[in-house]
């Protein structure tokens, strides 16, 4: 409800931020903003919301509350009365999230000003000094709020505080930008106003993340006080804004307020202890630190349990099937995380495939020049297709390649049957493109198609906080969360059904019966088994989950063994019936191999994988490992090169090497340690000091062998399928001919 300027109470215009504006600016602000009434207890904004408005209190009392660093309970940071303003962080150059929440303590009225308009009006109002002063005021106010949220304002005396406020500057970083490197002189101490930073060290050209720091954390305070160069580097995991306090001022303030440093130390130790708990032990190949930022911005993460996933690709296939353009929004490539389970070594490995995770502040939405991407109140990020012009900014902006370009007029669900895949690098001028990404299948009854289509129920959409109990509020986690096992509710267990089917098969095989009756039973079973292909293709017409059909298929297959034995015995007559029996057995054996592979291979495969890999990626990966091996070797000592030539190269290329790796049951990290031990044992202490860079080469050799093992296992998961499907078609045709022939000759 917009009220004209005349009805805005004059107290608003006397607020510090609005003083000095000329009439024109005031008119614009009054026209653009509005007055809002607030009752006691109303929440004006929540912590973490996007900050885009500024508030001035016309009447009543409001308070800012947040959990300060080192505290467990929220405290009131500041109380605002008539004439005070709050929410100044909205006027900063970046648009951060609210660091605290604002509530109404006593009923009153607020003037709400859109921040961008406020800046524009202020920039144009009066001479340049007005705006410079205003900006300084806003900056100090935002800095002060950040200090308060960090919790050390109370330790400083007011003169020091003023000095710090004046001296501080604001720094804005993009994702991946380095703040400082290890060894740089410590010129500033940084307070993180918003975003996430990671402290990292580079050993051997690989990045090791030592800690994550979020809003309210102080970076580099110890070094700023002592003046030593930086020990670790710091880079932004996501877009961040920081308050940079010059070293001299910070050191002076810390000297005069010794309890400040103590308090900071205590906070740091607490946080470190919490983070240590997240780092899982030697059993894992990846741990969750790899991309904590991703987990903190995602709101709906698609995860695949690698220990159960049989790499069949049904999820991607059904995604392509369900959408009109035949393009899958899900790619089974990506990072792997191991969810720490308290009290156990390692935990389930989860793959985070390339599928939109509906971020809190989506980079795609921010980059889109036409506003085609939006976020609805339920949290889903969607694309308005008529506004998309195919410029590709969103696709380039998403850090995880979750949104991609696809041809505009897709060829439909029958595409690809009669055409091979479109080359990935066809020029853009050839076809108009639009951006596509996961839309959570909101038009489909029964939820996301990928989740419903998984035969082993290994895929689910989760909230990241469910993955990480105890991650802490700072990174979006909740203190209590479900265990990872609860993420994948297993609706139909296969083992009981299979046991029952096996018993049934034996029973049927032993019961004698008339030829016609047993034949009818066997034939119906076979047709029912062949009909398994229908429910998944008819998903568009609304189907349920695939899991029950899958279990029924495997159980039915077991039963059919008994049925066929009871009908045909073990004879192989020299005619069509014999051919039918032979093709049935071929199909059944292939199916049994597949079932066994599905049961035993995934767990083994996930231990030797470093991430999600499709079968067509593996040869390229092998080549990339070769390249990296050569570049890791160049410049190393002769001893390392000799070890490579005599030990590691034969190890990587040994014929039976992958089988040895699989048989040993080791994970990649254990295998690396084992190999390193073997080498050191062979060297028997010689050559110390010349082994620089050996670890990297050992790791690459292990990777090389692991890639071959992965190809073997992935092949075993897929090789039986063509035989099984082709056999099914042949069996169905022969069955029909057999039935016709039998009926004719009766």
């Amino acid at each position: 409800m917009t009220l004209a300027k005349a009805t805005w109470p004059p107290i608003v215009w006397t607020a510090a931020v609005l003083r000095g504006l000329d009439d024109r600016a005031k008119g614009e602000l009054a026209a653009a903003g509005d007055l809002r009434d607030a009752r006691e207890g109303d929440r004006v904004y929540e912590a973490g919301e996007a900050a885009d408005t500024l508030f001035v209190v016309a009447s009543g009392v409001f308070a800012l509350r947040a959990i300060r660093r080192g505290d467990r309970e929220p405290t009131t940071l500041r109380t605002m009365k008539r004439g005070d303003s709050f929410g100044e962080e909205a006027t900063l150059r970046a648009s951060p999230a609210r660091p605290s929440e604002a509530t109404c303590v006593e009923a009153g009225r607020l003037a709400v000003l859109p921040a961008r308009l406020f800046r524009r009006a202020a920039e144009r109002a009066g001479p340049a000094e007005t705006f410079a002063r205003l900006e300084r005021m806003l900056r100090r106010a935002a800095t002060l709020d950040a200090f308060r949220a960090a919790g050390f304002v109370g330790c400083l005396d007011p003169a020091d505080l003023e000095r710090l406020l004046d001296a501080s500057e604001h720094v804005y970083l993009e994702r991946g930008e380095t703040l400082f490197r290890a060894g740089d002189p410590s010129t500033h101490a940084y307070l993180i106003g918003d975003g996430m930073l990671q402290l990292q060290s580079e050993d051997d050209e690989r990045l090791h993340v030592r800690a994550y720091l979020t809003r309210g954390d102080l970076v580099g305070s110890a070094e700023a006080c002592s003046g030593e160069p930086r020990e670790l580097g710091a880079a932004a995991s996501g877009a961040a804004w920081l308050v940079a306090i010059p070293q001299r001022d910070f050191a002076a303030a810390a000297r005069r307020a010794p309890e400040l440093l103590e308090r900071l130390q205590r906070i740091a130790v607490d946080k470190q202890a919490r983070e240590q708990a997240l780092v899982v032990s030697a059993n894992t190949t990846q741990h969750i630190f790899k991309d904590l930022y991703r987990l903190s911005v995602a709101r709906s993460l698609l995860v695949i349990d690698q220990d159960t996933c049989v790499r069949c690709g049904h999820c991607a296939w059904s995604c392509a099937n369900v959408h009109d353009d035949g393009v899958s929004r899900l790619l089974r490539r990506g990072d792997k995380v191991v969810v720490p389970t308290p009290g156990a070594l390692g935990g389930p490995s989860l793959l985070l495939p390339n599928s939109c995770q509906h971020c809190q502040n989506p980079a795609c939405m921010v980059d889109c020049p036409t506003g085609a991407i939006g976020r609805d109140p339920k949290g889903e990020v969607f694309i308005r297709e008529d506004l998309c012009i195919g410029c590709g900014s969103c696709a380039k902006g998403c850090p995880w390649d979750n949104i991609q370009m696809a041809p505009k007029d897709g060829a439909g669900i029958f595409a690809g049957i009669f055409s091979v895949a479109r080359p990935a690098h066809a020029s853009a001028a050839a076809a108009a493109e639009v951006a596509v990404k996961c839309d959570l299948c909101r038009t489909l009854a029964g939820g996301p198609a990928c989740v419903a289509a998984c035969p082993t129920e290994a895929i689910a959409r989760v909230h990241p906080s469910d993955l990480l109990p105890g991650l802490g509020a700072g990174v979006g986690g909740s203190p209590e969360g479900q265990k990872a096992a609860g993420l994948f509710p297993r609706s139909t267990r296969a083992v009981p059904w299979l046991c029952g089917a096996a018993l049934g098969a034996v029973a049927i095989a032993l019961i004698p019966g008339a030829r016609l009756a047993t034949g009818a039973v066997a034939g119906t079973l076979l047709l029912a088994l062949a009909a398994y292909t229908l429910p998944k293709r008819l998903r568009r017409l609304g189907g349920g989950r695939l899991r029950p059909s899958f279990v029924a298929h495997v159980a039915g297959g077991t039963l059919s063994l008994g049925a066929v034995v009871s009908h045909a015995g073990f004879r192989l007559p020299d005619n069509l019936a014999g051919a039918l029996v032979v093709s049935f057995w071929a199909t059944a054996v292939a199916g049994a191999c597949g079932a066994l592979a599905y049961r035993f291979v995934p767990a083994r495969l996930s231990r030797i994988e470093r991430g999600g890999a499709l079968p067509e990626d593996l040869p390229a990966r092998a080549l990339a490992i070769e390249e990296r091996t050569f570049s890791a070797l160049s410049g190393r000592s002769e001893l390392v090169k000799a070890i490579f030539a005599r030990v590691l190269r034969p190890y990587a290329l040994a014929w039976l090497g992958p089988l040895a790796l699989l048989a040993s049951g080791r994970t990649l990290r254990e295998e690396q340690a084992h190999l390193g031990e073997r080498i050191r044992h062979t060297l028997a202490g010689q050559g110390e000091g010349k082994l620089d860079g050996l670890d990297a080469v050992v790791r690459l050799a292990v990777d090389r062998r692991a890639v071959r093992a992965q190809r073997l296992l992935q092949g075993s998961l897929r090789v039986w399928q063509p035989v099984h499907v082709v056999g099914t078609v042949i069996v169905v045709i022969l069955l029909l001919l057999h039935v016709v022939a039998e009926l004719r000759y009766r």
Partner: protein
Amino acid sequence: MNRTLASIDKSTARRARTLPRAAATSDVTRARDVLLAALVAAMTLGAGLALVPAGSLRLSPGPLARPHVEAGLACASCHAAGATSAAGSCAGCHGTHGSTRAGHQRLLARGELGCVDCHAAHGTAEGITFLSGDRFVRWGAGPEETGAGSGPAGATVPFVPLAACSRCHDLASPRDPAARCSSPSPAGSSLGISLCFDEHQAPTDTAAAPGRIACAHQHGPSRFAAWEAAAPIAQRATRLAAGRGSGAWWAVAVAFAAGVSAFAAIGAARHSRRSKALPSQPLARTTNARLPQINASTCLGCYACVDACPFDVLEIQRYVAVVARPADCCGVVLCQQVCPNGSLTIAEGAPIEHRLRLDEHLESLDAPGVFVAGDLGGVPLIKNAIAQGVRAVDRVADGVPRRVRGGATCHDVVIVGAGPAGLSAALRAQELGLSYVCLEQGTVASSIRSFPRNKLVFDQPLNLPVEGDLWLQECTKEELLAQWARIVRRRKLAIREGCRVTDIGRSGADFVVTTSGETFSAARLILAIGKRGTPRTLGCAIDDAAAAKVSYSLADARSFASQRVLIVGLGDSAMEAAIAIARQPGTTVAISYRGKDFARGRARNVAEVKALVARGRLRIAFDSSVTRVNVSTVELTVSGRAESLPNDAVLVLIGGTPSWDLLQRAGVASNAVVADVT
């Protein structure tokens, strides 16, 4: 390609420059492929079943014997509904026949012996029917054979195979009563026919039976005659080749094989399609410079053109795209292709100066036999350079006269320069079997290092001759160079590094190329020297023994670990080399620059160098010049004062002189020169 945090460039973040496009992965295509394969298998099966000889395709337990077929019997005539055995139904037509043998009578009485045990209606039924005209037909279940032989016309004699008797009798033993029924000849083995004619009736009994059709020929006067005629025939031939019913098995096996191999073939076709490059045509050379023009009122600021430009010509300022560095525009016009709403158009600019006069095969119009390939000819981009190298060598191979090909002293072609164009020309020449040598003043493809971006982005694979596709979508320069070095080694290309061409002359029809070392002569010359030119040398005295430690380009920073290095120069390449070497462990790096401050170079490099100086990893001596290079020290003059630094290596990166004179010596002219003349 998934970019995880650890793989993001550590120095600065960049949005991706390549556009992620949705491609059908094997998950999606596999289901379709399997369906196709199943379809192929089904069709093969259908064709197989149709084409297989009818006799070998047994749909039923087997065809009937000829007499039964002629009597018009069907399954229902003998088999009661639902029963598999036809016991007892023979008597309906044939009547009950006992046996003359006591043993068999006992078995018959007990029901353990039946008609079909000796006479099969399907399976092993055999017999002979005499036709009129002294012919007989010997039939089995299904197959038939005709022959000449006389016997009472119309008589049918059923044969009982000895295999039926051997179930109980041991035919090899002479004391077995059944031994009398088999002949001692090989035909009398268990594969033969029983010769005992007296099972049901004594042979001489010729009483006629009451009038059933089936009986007419078995009883009566012709019975014995028919047997006498049939017995030698039975002895003569072994069993008829029984039709195998395995035609169906063959059809099934072929269908399986067809289905599985169809699946494999489709998969292979998809795989090769995925990695196949579109044929790249070298860019046509333009006469005028081209410049992008942007309509600011419709430009959305979507960064598509900025990301597409390989030379960073465009920038986004105040939310719209502007042409920031027009001088760098090379006319590739990718920006126009990617602009989503047509705000960017290409306008013709001023005519290009110094455009070399070449024909469409890249041969110089003024100096026939000299080809120009690559950046020197004015066409940018690595993939165009590669295509031009191929085209030039193809033309050379066409034109080189036969007598010279493969000559030992005189090569077919000398290629000057081993950048992308020269490398591609060398590969092609080797493929075509030409005798060639490639001369390079520095190291292979060292000009790639000066390419504007740290990472090279390729939207299409680089299609090298013989090697095929080099698909490094987003790679660092070092990776590309390492890959090419490996190709040179693997293919054993004849590339002479460190060999700088000083003169080009002619001797008759051949070119004589003089270098600092050898002299080469060839029928043709390809100049692929790029535009960077020869590195400038230090003008000071260098100790002879110290000459090896002075280098003019940075090959691998790691080889400088633990050394004390002096870098002369402060341009982009000098700064990048200093940064790379300072990052190696144990190095002491100093820079000597004759100016007083940073004069040129990218802001990023300047900032990085300043940061390293602040950290103490690097020392810059402004206003200095090198006076002497000794074996273990180097002498400088810094702001007038003399200084001596301990030193292990000197890297001179003070720019290069473009080799226009080499072109002149070769006789290649540019349009500017011609314009001057006219």
